[in-house]
């Protein structure tokens, strides 16, 4: 392993572990029935929703090559399939991968 890559991996893992570890330390004094726990629960769901929405609307990596229109179509169709299949997670997920690969060639 090259030293720079190895150091980058270690620095990235420390930066990632820090948030996780601080979360556990804070959890020691928080009861699951407390108001602060309910607040953090809302923060966690909202932050995840923000992350997912940003990943779809302002993507980085491979998805950034797909157009807004093709991404929007795939998301809407996948959600439609999610509700049609009585909230099954697998069908819309597999559908999204196949349709993304195909639709991007047309839009």
């Amino acid at each position, binding site marked *: *392993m090259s030293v720079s890559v*190895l*150091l*980058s*991996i270690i*620095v*990235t*893992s420390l*930066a*990632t*572990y820090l*948030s*996780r*570890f*601080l*979360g*556990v330390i*804070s*959890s020691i004094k*928080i009861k699951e029935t407390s*108001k602060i*726990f*309910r*607040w*953090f*629960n*809302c*923060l*966690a*769901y*909202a*932050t*995840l*929703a*923000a*992350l*997912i*929405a*940003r990943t*779809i609307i302002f993507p980085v*990596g*491979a*998805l950034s*090559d*797909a157009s807004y229109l093709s991404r929007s179509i795939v*998301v809407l169709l*996948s959600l439609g399939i*999610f509700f049609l299949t009585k909230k099954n*997670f*697998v069908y819309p*997920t*597999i559908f*999204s*991968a*196949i349709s*993304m*690969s*195909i639709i*991007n*060639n047309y839009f």
Partner: protein
Amino acid sequence: MIKRKLFLKGYKSILKPDSPAIALACCFVAIGALLKNVGFNIQESVFSTMLIYALPGSLVMAESILIGASLLSIFIAVWFVNARLYPMAVSLFPLMMDENQPKWKYYLSCHFIAVSAWLIMKSNYEAIEKKDRVDFWIGIGTATWSVSILATALGFYLADYLNKDMLMGLAILNPIYFTCMMVGAMKTLQITLSVTLGAILGPVFYFFSPEWSILLGGLIAGSIAYFIGEKNVS
């Protein structure tokens, strides 16, 4: 030590028909392919997933290496991107805290906090006794972590065979899977508002500050949802 029965019960949760294993694996296949294109060898790719185990963090690291960023800037950028793990930990670990369990279990198993494992635990913890939940959690975490490591290695070796359209298909899987899981979790007013407002405010704040958009969006959306929910209950 860790109770084998609970550990295996957690581990097997990724074998359920609607488990996130497939979506998770596909994303790490894409990461494995990306790391190879950035110039990582197989050991570095696998090692990075083992130690980091957070998709956005790995993406930021790969991009930073490409542009020759310093170690300090990598640390700060990754810390910002992965700061979401803090509220995720605080909203999960109080459900598992038990005086009779050794602290090392919590300090080590917090490495498994990631969207997939977090969502599985959130939807299954009520069926497990509180004193046993951390062992169940370690099982879930080990399972999702193993899937990610294996998929990274697979992605590394498949990199030469995956074209742009295939990588795009793999990249959309995870956001779609998590969108469905979040919509499925919208069972109370607070969670429904949190998810809806977060999905709106996250991208809106991106126009003002891309680095802070997720944290600010999450903080404001989550706080609004909390106050409306509390007011509604009282």
